């Protein structure tokens, strides 16, 4: 059951925060036609994921409800909503902006910190060691040497070190 939204718990500044985030700039263009939700292939399987509802909640200032709800992570980034939006809201980019804010505010899913950890360790999402290179060699493919140094530097310089898994994880 959804809980009622009380005005004193809403944050009227949230919509401006989203509009300042790259990708979220065109939020105010939305006229709530629902084309995004009706175009969404995730929504076909999952009632709870509705891009228009997320936009409405942002406009209402329901910051906690939007950022803490894992539902935003269901977006497949297929860009169907973005293609069809008659107002050019850039809905997929907007959802991505919301995910970036959610991470910054402490709501990063564990799968995402793990991905960041793999990148820092290997410079790539999937490890390439002797085993993988042996298989590549058999198929006459060039061998690959992992070079994570620059990748670690970029993670650090772009402010993403805080999203790396903690030592205990």
């Amino acid at each position, binding site marked *: 059951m959804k809980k009622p939204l009380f005005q004193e718990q809403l944050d009227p500044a949230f919509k401006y925060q989203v509009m300042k985030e*790259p*990708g979220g700039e065109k939020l105010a263009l939305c006229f709530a036609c629902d084309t995004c939700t009706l175009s969404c*292939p*995730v929504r*076909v*399987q*999952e009632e709870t994921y509705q891009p228009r509802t997320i936009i409405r909640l942002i406009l209402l200032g329901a910051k906690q409800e939007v950022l803490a709800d*894992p539902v935003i*992570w*269901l*977006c*497949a*980034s*297929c*860009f*169907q909503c*973005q*293609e069809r939006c008659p107002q050019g809201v850039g809905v*997929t980019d907007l959802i*991505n*902006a919301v*995910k*970036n804010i959610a*991470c910054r505010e402490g709501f*990063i*899913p564990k*799968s*995402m910190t793990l*991905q*960041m950890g793999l*990148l820092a360790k290997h*410079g*790539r*999402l*999937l*490890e*390439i060691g002797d085993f*993988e290179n042996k*298989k*590549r060699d058999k*198929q*006459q*493919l*060039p061998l*690959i*040497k992992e*070079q*994570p140094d*620059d*990748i670690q*530097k*970029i*993670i650090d*310089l*772009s*402010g*993403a070190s805080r*999203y790396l898994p903690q030592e205990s994880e």
Partner: protein
Amino acid sequence: MKKAALFIGCTVPVRGTNYEQSFREVAKVLQIELVDHPGFSCCGFPTHAINRMTALALSARNLALANQASLSSMITLCNACTENMTHTNHLIQHDPVTRDEINRILNQIHLQYHGEVKVKHAMRYLYEEIGLDTIRASVQKPLSNLRIAAYPGCHYTKPSELYEGFDNPENPHTLNELVMATGASIVSYESSCCGGGTLGAKEDTALQMGIQTLKSMKENEADAIVLICPFCDVMFEQNQKKMEKLNGEEFNLPILYYPQLLGLAMNIEREKLGLTVNRIKLDKVLEKIQSGNKE
């Protein structure tokens, strides 16, 4: 002879070696010189949802390395790499604030980048730079009795604002034309996102998304699916058994990466096309090709 950097990304060199090997083979026939750069790493796409600037700087690093090696053209095999690298190029060309921020990071690793390298997905490259006529002329054994469900995947055409009018996001046709150039015929089906982007967040939802498309391909009697993205392969091939279990009926739909299909039509030796890497048995497809050539 055309020349381009080959960017293979993270998933292809480990889980899509069949795609990589077959593309390198067909590129030889089509006279494309592919240059590997030992410094290439992740394109950055996996970090985009977490921290946009990490994703942009990671892709700009790869593009800067290509530019440093005097390569003005880059071929990508993965749809996500294509989208993220093209997105970065787009911002560097149109958004000076973002361009400066990216270069502030690149400077620290002694690189800079100003949008010099043109990125194209391998199939877009074949379609635009090589052309259907040349591809048709390279076919030695037309695959005339094969019914193919061609699945381009989302980021091959979307977001369309990045791709300069290439193809049609609502009704993609370039992969169909590339498949037809091999002599195979095209099966229509109801297409939806493969679900790959949702897999990490909620597996069942992602699998249900994939099932919708597989069902329609099956109903329309496809012999095989042709793919051009390793994430679509994770869903449609590597997770097909799970989808069958969830759906309660078998699909048994083998997949071929497009360069494997083209390679078969070019009559390239099968061991050079990585066919043994394909997880769903290709026996029926290969038999059908064999019998078609006898007729």
